[in-house]
């Protein structure tokens, strides 16, 4: 079995909103997969359904080959660190670690101790009084030290300073290499975290729009920029993911790869072209064409 997670037509409806809409996706075992997309795209809903913390409206989930709802044996193998993880009112660090040690069969106290020290997590303060960064740091301690075969982090870096984030990335890579496991993380810090990833799933409005190796996505789109007329003429017949227009100028992100013929054609014009980063690609997929009510000229006067 090569997949840690398999979903078929997974759908979750909240009232009139389809938070997740027919998602069929397979997540490779022992990879680090990034779940990317705008706020409200369905990332957290997906993680909640896969970890059996929420029930799908329709569709199917398999984790390590089993339905997570029906198998306590599967739930033992899962760890889900939410961005707004809650703890009982009277919990201090000691209580949180003790509960985790009981709950996660692969728990590493040694790793937890190291991380607590490095993140400078307060031992006496109750967890409810932690700052945003301290709460995130505790989540990272629990998520990594659980060594759960399938671990989910939902925006694990909120409130962490740059030093702490780099420390997280280092330990994540180090411990993943020593103890290979399936890690799924959602992030908006794509420029900073894209190289930690092997696989990328881009989700928008509850649907999967990309599911690929991070390397494949590096050639999945490109951008062209210049006089709007020339740029639009070049874009004719291609799939434009996003556009940015000011005055007579336009920048378009276009799906697909530039061919040598395209390059030669563009070099002959005054259209500039270039690669898009993964961050820009995710932004392009989440792009909504909105007509600004205020024109540039009016805004200036």
């Amino acid at each position, binding site marked *: 079995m090569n997949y840690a997670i398999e979903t078929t037509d997974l759908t979750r409806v909240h009232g009139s909103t389809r938070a997740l809409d027919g998602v069929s996706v397979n997540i490779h075992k022992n990879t680090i997969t990034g779940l990317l997309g705008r706020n409200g795209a369905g990332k957290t809903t997906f993680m909640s359904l896969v970890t059996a913390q929420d029930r799908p409206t329709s569709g199917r989930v398999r984790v390590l080959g089993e339905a997570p709802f029906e198998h306590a044996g599967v739930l033992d193998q899962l760890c889900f660190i939410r961005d707004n993880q809650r703890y009982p009112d009277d919990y201090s660090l000691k209580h949180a670690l003790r509960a985790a040690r009981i709950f996660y069969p692969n728990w590493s106290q040694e790793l937890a101790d190291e991380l607590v020290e490095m993140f400078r997590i307060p031992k006496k303060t109750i967890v409810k009084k932690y700052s945003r960064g301290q709460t995130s740091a505790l989540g990272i301690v629990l998520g990594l030290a659980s060594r759960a075969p399938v671990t989910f982090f939902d925006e694990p870096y909120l409130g962490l300073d740059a030093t702490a984030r780099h420390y997280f990335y280092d330990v994540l890579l180090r411990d993943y290499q020593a103890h290979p496991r399936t890690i799924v993380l959602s992030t908006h810090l794509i420029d900073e975290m894209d*190289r930690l990833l*092997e696989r990328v799933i881009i989700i928008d409005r509850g649907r999967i729009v990309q599911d690929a190796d*991070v390397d494949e996505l590096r050639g999945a789109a490109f951008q062209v920029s210049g006089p709007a007329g020339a740029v639009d003429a070049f874009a004719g017949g291609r799939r434009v993911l996003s556009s940015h227009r000011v005055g007579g100028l336009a920048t378009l992100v276009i799906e697909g790869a530039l061919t040598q013929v395209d390059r030669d054609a563009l070099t002959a014009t005054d259209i500039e072209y270039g*690669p898009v980063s993964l961050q820009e690609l995710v932004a392009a997929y989440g792009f909504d064409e909105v007509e600004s009510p205020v024109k540039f000229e009016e805004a200036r006067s």
Partner: protein
Amino acid sequence: MFDDSRPIFVQLAERLVDDILRGRYEEGAQVPSTNELAAFLRINPATAGKGLGLLVEQGILEKRRGIGMFVTAGAKGRIAAARSGGFVSDFVEPLVREARSIGLDRESVIRLVDEALSRSTSLTSDQQPTRD
């Protein structure tokens, strides 16, 4: 360190090739392992492994089972041969484009290249390939 133009594993392979050309890793020397590269560069180990794998395919590195990755004998020659193919598109054409856009004429470009060649020849004349 890495940019968005090409996959990271390709850029990693290019970095290692640069290191080999500059003599940081001599032919026969061991290069860092997948795990060391991943940890040092903060990249996914699969990406590091693909970068090393690419150089194995190109005959620049060889795997010695249970020991690690080593620079092959003759690696430098293979690298130079592979790179000369991209010399025009990677260096000459961008140079010509830039010269055009700043309005340098043909004679000036040729003169500037010639001057640069003379300077580098006088610095490293012992390393220049002989022309026959």
